[in-house]
């Protein structure tokens, strides 16, 4: 069955943080799917799930990255529902991604406020978070 309409629908209140992330060249304006997966992974990590109340920016079913990232959407769906039946419902999976993404955007918005006036520090802040979360998981070669 071909799905029509929008796969990802983000709450309007996160339009500003999207604009900031695009202006700071983290993502391109055509990369809504990648941007939402990035935010959803933060939302999942923080267990912050916010349902979309007012339609903001979206990504349609017909954009390439939707099918390319189907596996990730299933992963978010499964983690949220804890029920394998969700794997047969892709629409629901992307809806869950949207809501986790809302949660991630909320955190990103807070972090942006923390570095207010120094947007260049925003990248450092995210990267430090990424490193501290994973430093004990990756087996690294000894440093020189």
């Amino acid at each position, binding site marked *: 069955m071909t799905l029509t309409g929008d796969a990802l629908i983000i709450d309007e209140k996160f339009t500003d943080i999207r604009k900031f992330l695009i*202006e700071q060249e983290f993502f391109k304006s055509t990369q809504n799917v990648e941007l939402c997966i990035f935010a959803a992974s933060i939302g999942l990590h923080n267990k912050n799930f916010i349902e979309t109340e007012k339609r903001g920016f979206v990504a349609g079913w017909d954009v390439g990255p939707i099918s390319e990232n189907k596996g990730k959407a299933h992963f978010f769906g*499964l983690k949220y529902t804890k029920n394998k039946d969700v794997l047969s419902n892709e629409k629901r999976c992307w809806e869950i991604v949207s809501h986790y993404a809302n949660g991630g955007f909320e955190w990103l918005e807070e972090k942006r406020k923390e570095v207010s006036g120094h947007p260049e520090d925003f990248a450092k802040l995210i990267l430090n978070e990424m490193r501290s979360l994973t*430093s004990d998981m*990756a087996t690294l070669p000894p440093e020189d």
Partner: protein
Amino acid sequence: MRELNQLQQFDILAKIIRKVSSLPSRGNINSGLKSLSPDIRKLIENGLEGNQPNQIRANNRDKIGIVLESLVINNWRGYLGENTIEFSTDKDKSVTTIIAENQTGKSGILEAIHWVLYDDIPVTASNSDNLINDFAEQQDSKATTEVILKLINKDDEKYELTRKKVSELSDSDIYIKKWDESSKTYEPHICDPVSFIEQNILFKNLREIFLFRGEDLMASFQEKDSEKLKKAVNNTSGVTFQIYAKEAIDIFIEKIDDEISKQNSQDSRTKKAWEKYEKAQNAFDDVKDLYDKYSEKLKKLTDKESKLIKKIGKDSGEEVKEASENLLKIKPHIKNKKTLVNIKKDEIKGLIKTYAFNCFTADNLNQLTEIEEEDEQIEDLEFFKGLFHPHRKTDINEILNKGVCICGRDLNEGDEYYENVAEIMREANSEEEVQARENISILANTNKDILKDFHINYNSKTSDLAGLEGDYERLCEQRDEYEETLDQGDTDDPAKQLLKKEKEDVQVDIKKFKGLRDDANIKMYVAEENLKSLKPKKPKNSGNSQTQELDEIIKSARDMVSILADHSNEAEKDTKAKLSEVLNHYADEYSTTGSEFKFENDSYVPELVSPATGIESGLSSGGKRMKALFFGTSLVETVLSRINDADVPFIEPGAMFPFICDAPFSDLDGCNEDSAAEMVASLKCQKIILVHPKAYTDGVKEKLEEMGLEGARYFVERHITTKAGRKVTGRTHHIDNDIYTPFHEESDKEGSTIRRVI
């Protein structure tokens, strides 16, 4: 693919141009078509009027390019006052020789022609920011420089190009005038000078060939700059026309495609989307114009800053002079280092896009791998464990529907056996579910490696960045030291103080325009992304007659693009083959070493290989000069060979200019002066040879006499106020009945002058 003859191709182009003018978006397209020179447009119009290709070819091929009439230089570089050269325009006496001793200003003649055409002098020329004669400036602080070049094009139209500079720090002005037969005067010719020169006089890509200085080509060979040489070669092959036309048609196709989409947009929503897109297009154009304007202003300011720094350093104490030179050298390094720092920062920022998902979901993904590895019972993850058993839902469904188990037992709804199978059915997974589980497993199983990559990449990039930032800071400190020395020097000199003040003002402006340009750059990026996201999708063709007509034209245009692409490839190959042939003909004829020319695969950098080894071993400086001279003359010969080729429909204006040769005939290896002179003089076009008196008397003169080609001869003489002594005295040359004295010592003026002798 359908083969079209030349006439049909022009016909299609003409139709395209005609159609374009009826489109609402013609402004954009016409700007693309501007690249076509008037001659090409004329040919297209000819085609449309039904003229046969042979009539198109029937141009006057005796006059194929530009002929230079005269050059007037006023206070130009080393030349003092007004000096005039009347070039020989006689076809049978096509050589003008300008005899000049080293240090008298031989190259200044070629540089003057280069400057009047392109507002700069060749990259390998020295003192590129000192254009006004120093002695003239000393005598009169308001001294200016001016170069006037008079020329005739192949249609016998006469033009006068004048470039003037009122001070070293100011921009130059150019005036183009055209001879008016009725008033017998040169009248202003309204045009964009840069495009006029590019399309009608000499392609910029060919300037190193026709304004020949061995050093420029040698630099291209040395740097293995194949792209630059390829552009030069292609400009001689007619490919430029095809490339310009192809670009114009590509723009046309894009715009007409939009036009079809718009015409098929019946519903108000799509119409609105188009309106929004066009608005975004205008917004993008506006911000791009702004960005271009600021970039240009910034370039002018930084050039001015460099000139001021140099001027402050000039005539100062050694320390200040050295600081000014070092400052000029260090600035490009700082700019490069800053660019590298920014690139590295962007790369580090890019790690977020690449690795954020894996880092933030690492905990959750790891749990999944633990289940698989340890078969652990994690209550929260039972749902995932269940997916280990990829039973096939459809197969079990079939059993239930048939009512017969695989062991042959009957299955009746409600009985124990039926319930057992139904239970298995509930636990089973569909193919879709199994596939999804596999995808998730891949995410989980590859995550550790991806995290490792992230940390390795992060560590290496941040360490690179630290190194680059350290270098950048050190360079900045060094720059500050030089600037301090520059600021402290000559504090008593009011003229220097004024220059310093001017430099500070320029630096303030640079900072301001950098900010404006960077802002415009960000806005341009956002506007471009916005434009991409707003582009309405192409609706299905509605089949109305107007869009059908547009569709047909677009189809012809696409055919034309592919034909032009094929032609360009063929013309490129043909020209390269012809060039090779001419190069080897010259090598056979004039080289005394028996070497031959080869091009490696796609490269346009020629190699002069030894017959014994088959490779080019280190050439001496004379060998390098000879190679450059061979290449330059061969390329001119390649253009000339097209003139008599009946298959070539026309010669592009801009591809045939007089050959102005500043070749050091006396320093060639493996080739005698007279042979080199013969090679240059034999070219069937106007030639201007700048030659050292020794090389002239040692062989060039004899060869030119033998060929009977010398139509005008000039001596360049330098006047110096001091007694220079042994280095210059007694250097007189007897040439026919004239005595050439390159240097006149203890003169009341300092500068070179030009004297006509024949």
